[in-house]
């Protein structure tokens, strides 16, 4: 059993991978660093404190004191030149000119500025004696599943499956070709199918670790859960990994140099990094582009992962995206086998 060629080839693949520290970082470390950095940078904390300037002049200190007492606002009294400068550069959201009428100067296309104007106006009106007729109460919630990090983790998972599938397979194949190792294998009775299958098998072993590392980190650090079943996540990731391994095989099927295959990899991956909704929703792209975007394997994979992890969908509801992922894999693999350069 241990001396079966498939076992030995798969072991060789795995050893070559885990004895390469850089590869370990890019596959395991990098997505976690990315998730951590983006999760921190885009955590839900609301607009934060809004800075408001009050122009120096009669009545300025009373207005400023009133504004400073309001929750979510800070106020400073500034001279005209300084106030204009800070408004223009966005360091203050609003400039209040006391007097009659009270003048609000701000950029109405900035959400922050419009919010500051509403808040400041309420303070100014109440100071002049306005009484709110209705009683209100605020209830604040933060719902897991609606945060950016909940959107991001499945996307990073998809992106990582793409990256390690393409690099893991494509790079090793081309390296074996440039080092004439492929030709050396061809001089033995080794079956070609064993060689190709060994890539798939070693991918599946590492896939398990990759997924566990990223999903585990998301849960531990940000409490990103999996609303659907773990079995569904496992099925989708395996399908995704196989599909991208097929694409990696296709990319590597003819290339003779590492430079050539690197270029091809980037050509394949770059559009998907941008278009496939890893970091932001692909709904932002124009309608004419949507059919193309949705036909990309990473888009379909990300959609399926999000459906299970965020919405708790079942596999039976995901026929369309999973079909797209599978089709890419099968077609790539079949074409790769036809055109593969074995030496």
């Amino acid at each position: 059993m241990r001396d079966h060629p498939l076992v030995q080839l798969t072991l060789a693949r795995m050893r070559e991978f885990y004895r390469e520290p850089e590869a370990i970082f890019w596959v395991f470390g990098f997505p976690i660093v990315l998730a951590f950095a983006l999760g921190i940078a885009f955590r839900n904390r609301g607009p934060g404190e809004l800075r408001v300037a009050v122009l120096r002049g009669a009545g300025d200190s009373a207005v400023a004191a009133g504004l400073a007492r309001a929750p979510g606002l800070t106020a400073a009294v500034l001279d005209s030149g300084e106030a204009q400068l800070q408004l223009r550069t966005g360091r203050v959201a609003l400039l209040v000119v006391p007097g009659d009428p009270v003048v609000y100067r701000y950029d109405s296309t900035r959400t922050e500025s419009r919010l500051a104007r509403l808040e400041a106006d309420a303070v100014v009106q109440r100071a002049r004696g306005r009484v709110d007729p209705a009683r209100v109460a605020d209830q604040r919630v933060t719902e897991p599943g609606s945060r950016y990090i909940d959107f991001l983790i499945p996307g990073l998972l998809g992106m990582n499956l793409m990256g390690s599938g393409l690099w893991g397979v494509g790079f090793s194949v081309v390296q074996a070709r440039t080092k004439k190792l492929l030709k050396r294998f061809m001089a033995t009775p080794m079956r070609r199918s064993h060689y190709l299958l060994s890539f798939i098998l070693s991918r599946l072993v590492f896939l398990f670790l990759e997924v566990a590392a990223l999903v585990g980190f998301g849960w531990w650090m940000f409490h990103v859960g999996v609303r659907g079943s773990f079995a569904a996540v496992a099925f989708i990731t395996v399908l995704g990994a196989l599909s991208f391994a097929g694409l990696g095989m296709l990319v590597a099927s003819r290339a003779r140099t590492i430079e050539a295959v690197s270029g091809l990899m980037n050509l394949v991956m770059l559009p998907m990094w941008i278009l496939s909704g890893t970091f932001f929703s692909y709904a932002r792209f124009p309608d004419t582009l949507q059919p193309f975007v949705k036909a990309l394997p990473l888009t379909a994979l990300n959609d399926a992962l999000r459906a299970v992890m965020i919405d708790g969908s079942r596999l039976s509801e995901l026929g369309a995206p999973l079909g797209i992922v599978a089709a890419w894999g099968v077609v790539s693999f079949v074409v790769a086998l036809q055109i593969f350069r074995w030496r």
Partner: protein
Amino acid sequence: MLAAPIYCAGLAKRYGDVVAVAGLDLTVNARECFGLLGPNGAGKTTTIEILEGLTAPDRGEVAILGMRWSGGADTRALRERLGIQLQDTQLAEKLTVEETVRLFRSFYRASHSVDEVLGLVGLEEKRAAWVGKLSGGQKQRLAVACALVSRPELLFLDEPTTGLDPQSRRQLWDVIGRFRAEGGTVLLTTHYMEEAERLCDRVAIMDHGKVIALGTPRSLIASLGAEHVVEFALTDGATRAPSATELAALPGVRAVRSGPDRTALTVAEVHRAVPALLGLLERRGAELSLLATHHATLEDVFVSLTGRQLRDA
């Protein structure tokens, strides 16, 4: 009578405008060590790779151990019986010696144990070392180990000792010797004539994709008609140099070859030719800057056939 381990006839292969092999016939007999000799670009590697079934010839017939490279199951069955070392394979650097041998071993039905094959090439102590950490000679012995692991009947070695120091080269010669002692047949290419003379029962000297001489090293050297080569050069060049006819007339001289920086005489009897040469030069008032004699080698055979040195051919 069993088929010859290697038979080929009318072999031809071209790459674009470059003719690599131009009509080649060879038969290698069982238990023979056969050498393909020639300068770089003579077509040695193309020939051996055609015989190994890795390159398809444009024309010609090949039979290895009585079988043809027909693809499919026959090809796999034939590969089980061959050991192949390629000229430019770089084995995976991050695998250990043992892991590499075990990997190659897994491709074959019948095989040596890992211990046996490491013993054959003398790499027992390196079994846990990464391939990337081995010396050039150790890497070559590992490559040969991967070729020997299947207990082959026929071993192909493409420039197995190129770039190795003399000690590593001798270690590899020992490995080949042990394989032959077990009854194996070897085809090797080399551009070291000394290696061919030492190892090979017969050699074929190749140039421009053709065999230009074939025979035992001894018979090829004997075909020069003399066993020694005397080389000399003069301090002030051509002005006082004796002509080729004068040199050829000296006692014991069989052939004269003038090179750009030295003149070589093929001689039967050094003890008669050298005093005569010195006498002639003295009468001419020419002064020697170099005088050397050596036993005739295959290198001299190549030079006499092509007019070129092997190394810069």
